[in-house]
C-alpha cells in the first residue's frame, strides 16, 4: 500500500472532472453550430464515468475480497446524445431545408451550465482530498523529527 495512493485516487477524480469540463465547454462553444464534417448539426457530447476497482483485469476479485478501496474513477467514453435536434423555422439560413426549417444542436445551455457547476464542485472536493492527504503525510513525517 503506497502512501501516495490517496493522492492518486483523488488525481484520477481531477483528471475525469477536468475532461468532463472540456466536453461541457465544447458543447457550449458549439451551441449554434449547424455544420460538422458529416453534414449534420453538432450533437451534444457526454463524458461517461466508470469506477476503477482495485483489481485491474480481474473484476470478480472485488466480490471475493471487497477489502481494497477502489482506484478512483476514469472516463471510459465520450458519447453522443442521440436526442433529436431542435427544429427552427428560418428560411433565409443557408442550411435550411426545402421547407425552410433549420436543425440546431440538441444542446440545452442551462443543462450545460448546471453540469459545469457540478464538475467544478467535484473538482474542488478532490483538491480538498489531496490537501488532506498532504497534511497527513506531513504529520507522519514529523513523527521521527527531533524537538
Amino acid at each position, binding site marked *: *500500500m503506497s*502512501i501516495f*495512493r*490517496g493522492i492518486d*485516487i*483523488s488525481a*484520477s*477524480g481531477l483528471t*475525469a*472532472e477536468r475532461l*468532463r469540463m472540456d466536453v461541457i465547454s465544447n458543447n457550449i462553444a458549439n451551441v449554434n453550430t449547424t455544420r460538422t464534417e458529416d453534414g449534420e448539426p453538432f450533437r451534444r457530447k457526454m463524458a461517461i*464515468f*466508470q*469506477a476503477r476497482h482495485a483489481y485491474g483485469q480481474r473484476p470478480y476479485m472485488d466480490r471475493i475480497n*471487497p*477489502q*481494497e*478501496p*477502489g*482506484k*478512483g*474513477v476514469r472516463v471510459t467514453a465520450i458519447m453522443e446524445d442521440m436526442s433529436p435536434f431542435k427544429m427552427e423555422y428560418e428560411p433565409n439560413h443557408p442550411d435550411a431545408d426545402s421547407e425552410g426549417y433549420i436543425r440546431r444542436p440538441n444542446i440545452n445551455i442551462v443543462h450545460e451550465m448546471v453540469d459545469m457547476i*457540478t*464538475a467544478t*464542485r*467535484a473538482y474542488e*472536493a*478532490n483538491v*480538498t*482530498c489531496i490537501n*488532506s*492527504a498532504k*497534511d*497527513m503525510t506531513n*504529520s*507522519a513525517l*514529523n*513523527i*521521527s*523529527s*527531533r*524537538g
Partner: protein
Amino acid sequence: MFERLTGTATFNLLTKGLDVSSKRHSVISNNIANVNTPLFKRQIVTFEDQMAKVFDGKIDIVGRREDDRHIPIGESNYMNVDPVTIKDRIHVMRNDKNNVDIDVEMSDLAKNTMTYQIHSTRLASMFAQLNDIISRGGKS
C-alpha cells in the same frame, strides 16, 4: 531495549490508529472521486465499534484459533482487530443509483485527517520523550 516504550498498548494502538486512518483516507478519496459516477456504491471502513467491544469485554463468543487459516470468530486481542471495508449497497437517494453524499464524505475526510494528526502528534511526542532520555541520561 526500548520495549518498555515501543511495546506498550499506547504505542501499538497509536500505530494501529494511523493504519486505520490511512486506509479510511483512501476509501473516502475513492468515494469523492466517484461522486459523479452512475451506479457507484460508497465504501465505509469500520473499526472503532469492534475495538470498543474488545475493550469493554463485550465479545459474545470467541473461537480459539490454532492455525492462521482458521476463520476468526469474535476477537479478544486488540492487536488482531483490523479495519474492515464494507460497501453500502442499501441506502440510495439519487436518480443515478449513486449513494455518495458529498457533505458526509467531506466531513468524514476532515474528521479522519484530524484523527491522523492527533495520533501522529502523540506518537511524535513519545519519541521525543525517548530522545530526551537518550540525550540527557546520566547528566545532571
